[in-house]
């Protein structure tokens, strides 16, 4: 079972990915675990996801917190704080 990952703004630019399908390892259970896992994917990912305090995550199109579960998630998005309006 794969999950769709989406990246926006400079998170997209710095990882070089806008969209991908990922098979999440079963030990990644929540947003905090997911960010730790992303940091291990290479130097660009380590740089972006090392900025833990500034990375925002949405799970299935809802703003998520660090302890939000990934159980049943289909679409996960990574982005900086929003700046619309």
């Amino acid at each position, binding site marked *: 079972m794969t999950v769709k990952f*989406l990246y*926006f*703004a*400079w998170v997209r630019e710095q990882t070089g990915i806008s969209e991908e399908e990922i098979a999440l390892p079963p030990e990644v259970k929540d947003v905090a675990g997911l960010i730790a896992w992303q940091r291990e994917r290479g130097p660009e990912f380590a740089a972006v996801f090392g900025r833990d305090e500034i990375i925002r995550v*949405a799970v299935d*199109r*809802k*703003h998520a917190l660090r302890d939000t579960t990934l159980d049943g998630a289909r679409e996960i*998005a990574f*982005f*900086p*704080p*929003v*700046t*619309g*309006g």
Partner: protein
Amino acid sequence: MIRVQKEDFDIGGEVDALRKGRTDIGAIVSFTGTVRDGGADNPLSSMTLEHYAGMTEQELERIEKEARRRWPLAETLIIHRYGTLRPGDNIVLVITASAHRQAAFEAASFLMDYLKTNAPFWKKETGADGESWVEAKDGDDAALSRWEAED
């Protein structure tokens, strides 16, 4: 009602459509956010708004619903643009209509504060020094906190 679009909007036309034929509205507040030039020190040639299609609509609907739960509103409208805009261009329009002015003012201000901190839009500016992503403002979180005591 919410709309996410590339196209410009017409403030007067939107206000007219929203109030048409109604006599139960006493107060209409509109907020228009526009692209502001940074002035001589920081001239802006354009701004590009990226958004998370699908989540944006869902967030705007959630915010609108929350405003209608908190205040007695006859009508509400949120339009947010995306794509490339120039100084002076419209970015966002919020309209609230109510029997009474305080509800209309507060709800419009609330909608903007929530939209600023929750709607998944990101601005990139192109100026004299090239491109840069706009950083979120602490002031926006502070503005939001005004409403949280009422949750």
